[in-house]
């Protein structure tokens, strides 16, 4: 994926595998795994079933909140793998009721760390004693692509904003230590946002804890930029218009896999075999599709603007047709053989093309609806500063009046609040009343959550969005979506604030934007970690032949549009003098999942 490619996160996967193997091999004989569904998905990024089988795992079950059906669970050691949540412990308790006591060893592995609270919960249920061991399985980072790792902790942002619980910050610090254990100490650390200082303090603490035992690895990453999501709340509320971003927005990508309704995949349905189809909640058949850069077509499409997808697919189709037509030109046996050798690749490319054509069609259907277009238009108006943020815009009034989906309305209201640095108290009250009257009183908690998260607040200071927009060149009116020149192509006009900030910091440090820093929330971090001379890599020393590597850590999630923007910058590193960016995040988010996560799970 990356052009520089000096830092390849596959080493993280190797490290995770080693950790997992060690634990698995610590339990002799065959074992069955019982795990949470979402974890099972994340684990597929560490090792597939054949890998698990080679370490003695013969069967796997989901922890579904039901009793174990005894006959189906074989008489071997059982390993429970869950997140350290009390709900999971309750599910385990229920599961254990279906399992006769004794005769088998039970193990519990908590990902990514052990928790006293969970152990106490098991104790309350009276089942803690049945476990041979409760162990910590420190899988902190899951590798999504060679330049992108995620902690797969979607709840992180909600936890520290709404619930005030900073556990995820500690986990993030541990994840960063893990990255530094593999890629060496990062000499320069910058950051902005509420939790950034705490995060760095924990990193220092963890380093102190290692005392003289730090791994002796040369530093490969030159700079770490930590961005708290709270610094840039605009980007997650904006509509991401890259191909991958839209797939995530419309269908939801989990662990690099998107589950598409089979009806939507008429052409490409038979292309992927060996993957069983599932049913979604409505009973429509869902088909999992792996989205990864190992498919060259997808590698070329994922970060492109959606309007460029059509031409790209067409060009690709032409290319395949041309290659396929070469069979007529093959006259001699040697030429024929040459062609036959290429055939499997052409077939695969064809299938992939069919798949992505159907995905693109499905997306077009979603994007083509008038509601999508109208909301997008309103959003872009807001971002351009074309809407008076102290009034109720007609579009919002109409949307509430027509009872448009709550997330759509909330997204635009929140965006209005964020770029206006909060809403006039009267207006805020009006919105709240309207929303409660329309969508139900129970959404009051959701609104309260949004307020805590800083998304829906009363104005205390005048907005500085206009100056920020100018300083960081957030809005580019003339966007070339087919052949982008600026990162703003990812939102068709709006350049993600986070990425612009990171760029500014990398090139000039914080000094260049001191004025902005005072208006962005949270402390500003600029620290240097001393790297012993022998552990410095070539690039840290004066050799400037290869460009530096910058790790951006999104504390609280990052969008696919931000990923695309950073990859775009990396791909242009020789032209613009940008560094090579690699990305780590607590999770990948889009406007839907971001708001969904913050909503209160109350049923009327």
């Amino acid at each position, binding site marked *: 994926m990356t052009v520089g490619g000096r830092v390849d996160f596959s080493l993280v996967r190797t490290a995770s595998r080693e950790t997992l193997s060690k634990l698995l091999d610590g339990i002799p004989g065959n074992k069955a795994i019982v795990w949470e569904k979402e974890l099972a998905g994340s684990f597929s990024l560490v090792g597939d079933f054949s890998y698990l089988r080679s370490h003695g795992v013969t069967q796997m079950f989901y922890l579904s909140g039901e009793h174990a059906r005894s006959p189906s669970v074989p008489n071997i050691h059982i390993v429970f793998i869950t997140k350290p949540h*009390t709900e999971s412990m309750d599910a385990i308790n229920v599961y254990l009721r279906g399992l006769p006591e004794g005769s088998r060893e039970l193990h519990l592995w908590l990902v990514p760390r052990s928790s006293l609270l969970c152990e106490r919960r098991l104790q309350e249920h009276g089942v803690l004693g049945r476990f041979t061991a409760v162990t910590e399985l420190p899988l902190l980072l899951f590798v999504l692509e060679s330049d992108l790792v995620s902690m797969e902790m979607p709840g992180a942002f909600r936890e520290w904003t709404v*619930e005030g619980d900073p556990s995820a910050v500690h986990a993030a610090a541990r994840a960063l230590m893990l990255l530094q254990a593999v890629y060496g100490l990062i000499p320069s650390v910058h950051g902005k946002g509420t939790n950034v200082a705490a995060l760095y303090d924990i990193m220092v603490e963890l380093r102190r804890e290692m005392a003289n035992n730090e791994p002796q690895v040369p530093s490969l990453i030159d700079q770490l930029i930590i961005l708290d999501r709270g610094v840039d709340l605009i980007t997650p509320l904006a509509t991401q218009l890259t191909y991958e971003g839209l797939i995530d927005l419309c269908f939801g990508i989990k662990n690099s896999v998107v589950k598409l309704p089979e009806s939507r995949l008429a052409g490409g349905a038979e292309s992927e075999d060996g993957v069983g189809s599932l049913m979604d909640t409505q009973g429509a058949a869902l088909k999992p599709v792996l989205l990864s850069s190992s498919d060259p077509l997808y590698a070329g499409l994922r970060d492109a603007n959606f309007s460029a997808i059509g031409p790209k697919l067409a060009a690709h189709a032409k290319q395949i047709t041309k290659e396929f037509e070469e069979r007529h030109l093959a006259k001699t046996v040697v030429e024929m053989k040459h062609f036959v050798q290429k055939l499997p690749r052409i077939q695969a490319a064809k299938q992939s093309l069919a798949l992505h054509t159907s995905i693109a069609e499905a997306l077009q259907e979603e*994007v083509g609806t008038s509601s999508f277009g109208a909301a997008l238009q309103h959003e872009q108006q807001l971002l351009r500063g074309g809407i008076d943020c102290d009034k109720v815009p007609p579009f919002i009034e109409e949307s509430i*009046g027509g009872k448009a989906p709550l997330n759509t309305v909330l997204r635009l209201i929140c965006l209005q609040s964020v770029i206006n640095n909060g809403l006039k108290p009267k207006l805020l009250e009006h919105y*709240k009343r309207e929303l409660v*009257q329309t969508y*139900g009183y129970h959404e009051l908690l959701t609104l309260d959550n949004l307020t805590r998260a800083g998304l829906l607040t009363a104005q205390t200071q005048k907005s500085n969005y206009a100056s920020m927009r100018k300083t960081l060149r957030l809005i580019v009116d003339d966007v070339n979506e087919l052949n982008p020149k600026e990162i703003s192509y990812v939102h068709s006009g709006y350049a993600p604030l986070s990425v612009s900030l990171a760029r500014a910091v990398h090139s000039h440090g914080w000094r260049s934007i001191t004025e902005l820093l005072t208006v962005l929330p949270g402390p500003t971090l600029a620290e240097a970690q001393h790297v012993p001379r022998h552990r410095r890599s070539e690039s840290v020393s004066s050799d400037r032949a290869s460009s530096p590597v910058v790790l951006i850590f999104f504390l609280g999630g990052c969008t696919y549009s931000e990923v695309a923007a950073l990859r775009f910058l990396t791909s242009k590193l020789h032209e613009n003098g940008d560094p090579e960016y690699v990305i780590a995040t607590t999770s990948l988010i889009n406007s839907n999942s971001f708001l969904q996560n913050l909503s209160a799970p109350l*049923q009327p």
Partner: protein
Amino acid sequence: MAQVSDWTRVGNDVFYRKAELYTMEWGGGINVEEVLLSGAPYGGPIALTWLQEGRTKHRAPQSPATPTIVIFSAAGVKMGIIKWGNAPLIAMGWTLSEDLLCVQQDGAVSMYDMFGNYKQTFNMGPEAKDTGILSAKVFEGIQGTGVAVLTATHRLYVIANVAEPNPRKYADFPSADVSCWTVLREERALKVLLCQHDVLCWSSAANTRADVVQAPHVTEGVEDPVVIVKVSVSSNQRCIALLSATGKLWLGSSDLLTRFTLHDTRSNVCPRHLAWCGSGSVVLVWEVTLQLVDITGSVATFYLDSPVHVVQELDCVRLVGDTSHHILYKVPHASVETLGIGSMSPGALLVEAHLGYEEESPRAYDCLKLIQGKEEEAVHTCLEAARHDMSVDNVKLLLKSSLFGLTFLPPLEPNTFKDTALKLRILNDLRSKKIGMPLTWQQLERLTLEVALERLVARRFFPVALAIARTLGLETQLVPRILAHWACYKIANTSDKNDEQLARDIHSKLGYTAGISYTEIANCAHSLNRRQLAVKLLGYECRARAQVTGLLRLEERAAALARAQATGDTDLILTVLLDIKRALPLGEFLMVVGGSPLCRAVYARSCAAGAQEALRDLYVQDDNFHEQARLRLLEAYDNKRTDLRLGLLQSTAECFRRAKDELGVQLTEEQMRLLKCQVGLEELHHKSYVNLSLVDTLMQLIRDNHIKDAEKIRADFKITEKRYWYLRVTAHAAANHWQALEQFVKSKKTPPIGYEFVVDACLNNNSQSEAKKYVDKVKDENKAEYLRKCGLVSEAEKFTAESTSSVLNLARVTGFLS
């Protein structure tokens, strides 16, 4: 020239060597004959006590007035004294971890460390206590050291491992006098062999009655019923020696099935000691005569300076006498080959060549010529001989020779030589008088270097142990352990220093050595009742979790909480909080929690999972009404019963009021009104309205044609005209009440929400025909778009309007796959 003059030939090409290890001073002279002595194997310490009256003819002149056990190092340096005030001592022995076991007549067994510090006492069971013990053995069991006792009632009790002192009764045997007995370790079980006149009994834990067998014949071809008076088992448990009262010695396998040899000592006097020297020979010791009997039947006699005690080792015996400590061992084959007189083996020639080289004699060349092609063998033999030789001069000669030989070889395994030299140096250090651990190479191999180092540490030779560990490159595993031992020793032995100073001293020595655990040292300080010191030491601990839990153990809760908060580790903070919760009354605890936002968040999180009341306690304490309102609201929605929910909403509103959240109060009260209103509607129309939002309730009423009710609610809740229009249009369209919609829209000249919304409402409910009714009235700037939406494309083209967004053009790619 090599020292071979002290070799004694025993049979063909077999030599034994008796060499002095140390001259013994004993801190003031001891008559070995008058003491009960026990030397620990592997060159361990020696414990001795003066035999009490009744067991010797007269009281020894040196013996102190009160019974005393004195512990010496193998080199005779006094290490500790135990004042013995208990029941008479029957036997002493050493455990594998070099603790002294003293078996008393009443069956109690006391354990002391090698400095005479008391550790613990256990007993051999009630029967042993009641009847008393005749004799006892301390032996090396399967998993650890064991103790076996023979009671006065002829019962056997055995503790297989003193780490778990559970006495077990062994099989009964015929009740008769036992002349001697021993414990035998088999692969998985222990057996006891008892000699009663001419029969032998095997007793074990497995069977109820002992197996009785006839003693083997001790005289060739003659069936003589003899009394076995002494028995000895070799250290590897494979060979056994039986000595009859008539002085006949039987050597054979320990299962008594194979006989190696018979030997007649020609002495009716029972020797003081019978012991195996390795597994190839047996030594018998009378007063000052030592007879060595090889298993092939060869015999040699040694004369001693004084009576001795024999300590049986793995591969030799040590003879502890009044003034000296000797070792007697078989000269290994390699030594005989290299140093033996007249040997022409490659090893011997290499030594010769080396000596010639040193003397600058052509002999060197001649000898080298003879071993051409066999240099490697020669070097290895020399090294092998060097390893096992106990004479420093010989070792030097052999090492030099092999180094000389190595120069003629390609650099094969330089490490073998280096390792050997290093280990020999260590052995040499260990054997020095100061340390006094006379280990042979074989013993060290068996013991392993790690254990040897541990023993050094136990003897408090910290600098030597550190130096050895560092030389061996065992920094990470051993150095922290050695340092921790030192620190604990230091704490235990310097009571006068103040805590601050001592903690600083320890820290200045230990620093942040990799793997060092200050928690362990603090635990040690705590167990020695130096709590303040422990707290200070924990301050140096760098692993946060260990530090915090350590502080909690010391009940330094405030410090623990501060430290935990600094780490940012929420699980750790919770650990501390729950500990505090146990220790303090609820009110005080809540004060602590409320003292920091982080603590409050962590505790709230832990309560959120099912302990809502605890959470409420916290918010009440804090006067946090907003949070209380949220809790009440959650509770209200947990309750499906309307009356309960109303009550809870009432308290929610109350909380909002106290939180000064006017909007919250209004909205909540509105919700209560709505709920009451919905209940009324349900009774009226027999339809479900509860759980609908205000807007949804109105829409449902409009759909169901209860316009009057809707109008009433609209008035009650002060819904603006615009809002009402939106929902009315949406509801009519959704219910396909097209006529009603038209009527309503026409009720005003221009609808306050614009015709666009009306058209969209129709279209959203799939009625283009209805939509067309209103499309003409749409504002001009939107007309083209709305005409197109209604499918009136041709009309739309008349209006030249821009397309909404350039984003949404997807060029369709189809057809190429067919």
